[in-house]
């Protein structure tokens, strides 16, 4: 019995400079009693410092050490030896405490001072307001796993201080671990240093004094195998503390005596934890509590690393083998859950046999054995070939789904990545697809960082003793479905195949050129497999040889059986197309069980919308999301109400309203695509990003053909409709034509006369143009006035007499239109055009002579004024010529015969560019423009007439 008398509350201990008062009793150990105490602040007399006082008072059951008068601790001769032992231990504990405090002042509670008094010694310690972990738990587990993990890590932080100085604590338990602070600020502190020894002391067996606490004491301490005592001994105790936080109590001696250390799997904190978390807890507890010291954690850092990994698994952060394992399973489980068409994968017993043959040696294996083979033999990626519908996707998805639900750090993680979504992304499509499933801690900030971390992880195989296997088995599905230029994808595959921690299986219908792979082939079902499957449903093997062969493909066999079940009859199909059609019909019939409207809506979804989706997907080369599908589906809806579609799909006549319903376009889209095609009939699959694709490529091909047929039907229907209208219109046109011919049709002019007149008009226009060019050259100083006058006269001939005669004859005839253009002819303007060159030849010379005089006389100012006026005149006249030609010749160019047209164009070659390139303003009509040009010409002429130089005599 412990008869040690504690100091009563109120006792005074007058230490130098610090008069302490005992406020309460805290507890006692084998060599000390601890009190709560206080002392007054020197300056602020009404303020107190709260402290702990630890009194050396060893327990001696024989009564040789006792409390004497005045509070002194007395001992007799027989108690002296025990006293000395505990004094040494007490002082050593203080010494270690002070050493460690000097190195890590903030990490340990303060040790203020030690004073001799009352024939014993007292150590003054900080009262940090701490609470012991033992009291905190009170026999129950921690509030949650994360709290337990973090507290354990903080305990290791504290312990590390000791180990760094080569000290072992050797008395780690719940009551010696104090919690300071709350929440994120909480830290853990170790107390009671009486068992602290350096490793050297233990090796030399110097003054060994160990505490033994059941459940926390390592075997090597308990059995006296001191050579085994090291850092791992403390870490055993830390693990026992962790265990206690998980279960509310430390492991029992019985548990520790067993071959397998306790693994804390029955902790309530793990009740809903994922497998990866449970496995990590098992790893930590088993390693930490291993009976063999050298098999445990060798250092605080090693244990902290595993605890950090546990935290990552709790939060789902980080790129680790466990994270990949978790992500691989999760993504496929979500895919299957989301898509009713994939639920067959979970019915293992109903799946058809999947067999694979290696091309290199002809070895045939079951799927599981094949995947195991791939996992254990590193090398080139494996290409799993097979025809459409043979089960490549099934094989890959099934591989992921059949991994054990319990995580194992020794087997590869498996991930499935479909390649139909491939698009160029800087050569990292596959890596990015993997990363999409992961989450990252604060150290990984950018996508590039994440790729780097992932690549590092995949560069390390899992090694265990003399064996190794990849960390990740990557299953890439549908290489042939990757659209567009896949060079980047193939490069990425080749690059990833170099990583020693990664194995790949790539499913494809064909092997792309130049990709180094090992080839394997999914085998067709045997006749026996087919018969067994059919027999199971009471179905007969088709007589048709082609059909029998077709049924060796699992997809076709599945469609066959589902069709039979749906029809409740034997299937009478002879080709793949018939089978698929029958299958689709069965789906629609199945939907029809919900009523007639449902049936028609399903029909529309399957036979009209789905084919359109298939075509759109083919065209776009990628999956389509709701946004991109909406417009196509709405177009289909609009067609349903039209007579065109009614002709193409006569069976829907009278049911258009039932099909389209009375809802908005978006709601109808939701019904057709999301509800019917995706969820109910499983003909569409939807991935995480919301993109849809047709359930199988074979179905897609069939649907594209169906879409083509639909379009042809619609076109045909439209044509028929258009043809009727066209005929009606044609009849009407004939009647009108007859009337026209008889009474209303305009008479043409004589063709020869018409041609002569228009040719002459062109000639005169050309002459006017040449006159304009000469006048421009004069004003530009390129030709002399004499030369200019000569050219004006040369091109100023009147129209030919024959042309004038023809013109007159035409006017007097009964004709009203030019024969080839069927347009009226502008005689008035034609006369103006024909007369234009002669008029210029008569009026321009006077201007030329005047200009010439001005040039000779060097009357600059007068010359400039004259030149401006003259320029205005010739520009107006040039515009006029252009406009007259427009009015006379231009309307009759169309309808010209080729020969005539060519002649016309040849005639235009003579027209100077300065004339041809004019662009008068026609915005207010040709007539207005001509009127304006004439006005400008007249005005210019008036201006020139006012100039005196005109009237000066000069020789010609």
């Amino acid at each position, binding site marked *: *019995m412990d008869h040690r008398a504690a100091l009563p509350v109120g006792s005074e201990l007058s230490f130098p400079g610090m008069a302490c008062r005992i406020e309460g009793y805290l507890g006692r150990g084998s060599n000390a009693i601890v009190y709560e105490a206080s002392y007054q602040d020197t300056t602020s007399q009404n303020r107190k410092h709260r402290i702990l006082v630890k009194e050396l008072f060893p327990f001696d059951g024989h009564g040789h050490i006792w409390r004497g008068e005045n509070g002194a601790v007395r001992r007799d001769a027989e108690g002296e030896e025990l006293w000395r032992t505990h004094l040494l231990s007490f002082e050593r504990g203080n010494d270690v405490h002070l050493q460690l405090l000097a190195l890590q002042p903030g990490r340990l509670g303060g040790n203020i001072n030690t004073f001799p008094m009352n024939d014993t010694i007292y150590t003054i310690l900080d009262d940090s307001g701490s609470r012991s972990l033992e009291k905190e738990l009170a026999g129950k587990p921690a509030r949650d796993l994360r709290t337990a993990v973090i507290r354990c890590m903080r305990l290791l932080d504290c312990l590390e201080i000791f180990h760094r100085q080569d000290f072992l604590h050797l008395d780690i338990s719940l009551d010696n671990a104090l919690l300071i602070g709350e929440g994120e600020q909480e830290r853990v502190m170790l107390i009671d240093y009486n068992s602290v020894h350096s490793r050297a002391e233990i090796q030399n067996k110097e003054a060994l004094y160990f505490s033994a606490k059941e459940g926390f004491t390592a075997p090597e301490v308990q059995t006296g*195998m001191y050579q085994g005592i090291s850092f791992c001994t403390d870490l055993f105790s830390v693990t026992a503390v962790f265990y206690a936080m998980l279960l509310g109590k430390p492991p029992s001696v019985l548990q520790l005596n067993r071959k397998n250390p306790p693994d804390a799997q029955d902790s309530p904190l793990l009740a809903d934890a994922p497998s990866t978390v449970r496995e990590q807890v098992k790893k930590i507890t088993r390693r930490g509590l291993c*009976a063999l010291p050298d098999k445990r954690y060798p250092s605080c850092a090693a244990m902290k690393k595993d605890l950090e990994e546990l935290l990552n698994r709790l939060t789902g952060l980080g790129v680790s083998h466990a994270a990949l394992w978790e992500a691989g399973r999760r993504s496929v489980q979500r895919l299957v859950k989301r898509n009713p068409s994939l639920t067959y994968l979970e019915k293992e017993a109903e799946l058809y046999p999947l067999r694979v043959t290696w091309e290199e040696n002809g070895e045939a294996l079951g799927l599981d054995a094949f995947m195991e083979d791939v996992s254990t033999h590193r090398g080139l990626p494996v290409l799993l070939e097979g025809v459409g519908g043979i089960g490549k996707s099934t094989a890959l998805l099934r591989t992921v789904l059949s991994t054990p639900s319990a995580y194992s750090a020794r087997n590869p993680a498996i991930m499935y990545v479909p390649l139909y979504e491939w698009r160029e992304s800087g050569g990292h499509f596959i890596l990015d697809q993997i990363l999409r499933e992961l989450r990252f801690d604060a150290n990984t900030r950018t996508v590039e960082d994440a790729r780097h971390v992932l690549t590092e992880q995949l560069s390390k195989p899992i090694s265990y003793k003399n064996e190794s296997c990849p960390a990740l088995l990557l299953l890439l599905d549908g290489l042939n479905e990757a659209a567009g230029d896949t060079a980047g994808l193939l490069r990425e595959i080749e690059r990833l195949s170099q990583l020693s921690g990664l194995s790949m299986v790539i499913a494809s219908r064909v092997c792309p050129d130049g990709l180094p792979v090992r080839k394997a082939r999914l085998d067709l079902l045997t006749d026996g497999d087919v018969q067994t499957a059919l027999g199971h449903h009471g179905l007969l093997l088709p007589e048709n040889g082609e059909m029998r062969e077709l049924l060796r493909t699992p997809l076709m066999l599945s469609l066959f059986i589902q069709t039979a079940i749906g029809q409740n009859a034997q299937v009478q199909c002879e080709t793949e197309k018939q089978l698929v059609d029958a299958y689709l019909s069965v789906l629609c019939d199945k939907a029809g069980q919900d009523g007639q409207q449902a049936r028609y809506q399903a029909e529309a979804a399957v036979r009209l919308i789905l084919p359109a989706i298939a075509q759109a997907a083919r065209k776009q080369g990628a999956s389509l999301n709701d946004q991109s599908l909406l417009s196509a589906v709405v177009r289909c809806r609009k067609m349903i109400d039209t007579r065109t579609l009614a002709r193409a799909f006569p069976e829907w006549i009278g049911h258009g309203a039932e099909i389209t319903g009375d809802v908005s376009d978006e709601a109808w889209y939701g019904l057709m695509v999301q509800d019917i095609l995706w969820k109910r009939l499983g003909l569409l699959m939807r991935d995480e990003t919301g993109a849809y694709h047709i359930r199988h490529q074979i179905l897609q091909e069939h649907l594209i053909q169906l879409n083509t047929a639909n379009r042809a039907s619609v076109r045909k229907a439209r044509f028929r409709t258009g043809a009727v209208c066209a005929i009606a219109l044609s009849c009407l046109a004939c009647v009108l034509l007859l009337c026209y011919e008889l009474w209303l049709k305009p008479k043409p002019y004589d063709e020869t006369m018409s041609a002569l007149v228009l040719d002459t008009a062109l000639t005169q226009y050309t002459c006017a143009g040449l006159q304009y060019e000469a006048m421009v050259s004069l004003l530009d100083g390129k030709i002399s006035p004499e030369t200019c006058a000569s050219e004006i006269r040369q091109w100023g001939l009147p129209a030919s007499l024959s042309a004038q005669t023809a013109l007159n004859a035409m006017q007097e005839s009964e004709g009203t239109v030019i024969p080839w253009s069927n347009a009226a002819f502008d005689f008035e303007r034609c006369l103006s055009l024909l007369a234009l060159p002669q008029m210029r030849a008569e009026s321009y010379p006077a201007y030329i002579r005047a200009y010439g005089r001005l040039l000779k006389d060097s009357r600059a100012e007068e010359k400039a004024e004259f030149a401006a006026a003259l320029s205005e005149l010739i520009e107006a006249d040039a515009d006029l010529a252009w406009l007259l030609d427009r009015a006379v010749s231009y309307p009759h160019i169309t309808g010209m015969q080729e020969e005539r047209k060519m002649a016309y164009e040849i005639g235009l070659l003579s027209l100077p560019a300065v004339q041809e390139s004019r662009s008068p303003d026609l915005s207010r009509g040709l007539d207005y423009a001509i009127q304006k040009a004439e006005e400008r010409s007249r005005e210019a002429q008036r201006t020139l007439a006012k100039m005196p130089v005109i009237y000066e005599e000069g020789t010609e």
Partner: protein
Amino acid sequence: MPEDMTGGMTVISKRAFENAAALDLSAGNAAQILATIPARSFSDILMRFAPEEAGREKLVDGLCGNDPSRSRASMDKKVRGWLSGKYQPTAREDLLELCFILKLSVEEADAFLAATSEEGMHWRDPKELTYAFALRKGMTYPEATALLTRVIPKENVKTKETREAFTSVVQREAAGLETEGELKQYLLDAGEKLGTFHNRAYQQFTEFLSLLEQPHAVSVEKEDNFTVRRIVETYLDNRFPSDWDKKKLDDKRRGILAGWPEEVALSRMKTGKIDVNRKTLILLFLATDGGEEITDDWQEDVYWDEDGEESDADADFRSSYIRMNQMLSSCGYRMLDPRSPFDWVVIYCLRVSSDPDAMEGLSERLSEMLEVLFSASSLETE
């Protein structure tokens, strides 16, 4: 062999240990080596604890002084037998008396008892607790026995011994008793905590028994639970010689068989009628392959070994050794002593074959060894 396993052993003990733990030692060779192992004699132990007191005369004086009715000649013969190693006292009371004669301290008496019998001072036994008090007070043996009559409660106040009390608790409490009056009062007050049985050992025993009672968990055919008889027949009972033949056995073999649990004893242990002894605990440890539970998960990873340098067989042996010692220590029993013939055989059994195809467990090793040691042919060669 790692230093931590043999650290603290004498040279002879270390050699004996290494012989027993040699890899792939056949049972035949082991039996031959066992014959050469210098077993720790009683005389050695006497000399270790009281070299000055262990003189023959002093021992005889002490024995006669404790009981004047004893014949000196008879005591002398007995002591000569002890000192020559011919035999040793097996009765607990004789060993306790020697503690007084040798004037051992309580701690020394604890170690002496552990070395000469299965366990040290049994603190929960009122008699031994009283003897410990007497030793601490420097009493003689007659004074101690007289004290017993005064302090042991006359009525059987303990209505039911609880299995929840553990020796370490009682030991701590008893260490503070100062006077006879306190001792008497403590024995009265602590009635339920006291008892002659080893509670922890009993707990361990029931755990082992429950493993043996359930046949292999993954057996296709559902088997009935094993009875105690079947357990003994399967794991503990071998082709032992008849009682008459046992007399022909040498000391070592006799020592091995002494206290061997048979069906009746095991049943009585199970019902709590008798205490679980050290030998039974050890044998059940071997029978259960170190207390291994059979699971479906054959990929259980027991050891974390990044380097993979140590073989599983080596790691298994070290683990079994340390766990067995831990078990014995926690139950208050003496840890394994390679100079004890029975313990030597146990150490040999812990060292399973390094050949994984051998499918050899601790239990199989024991059967083989017993077959060799106690077969009719081996006895004939005696």
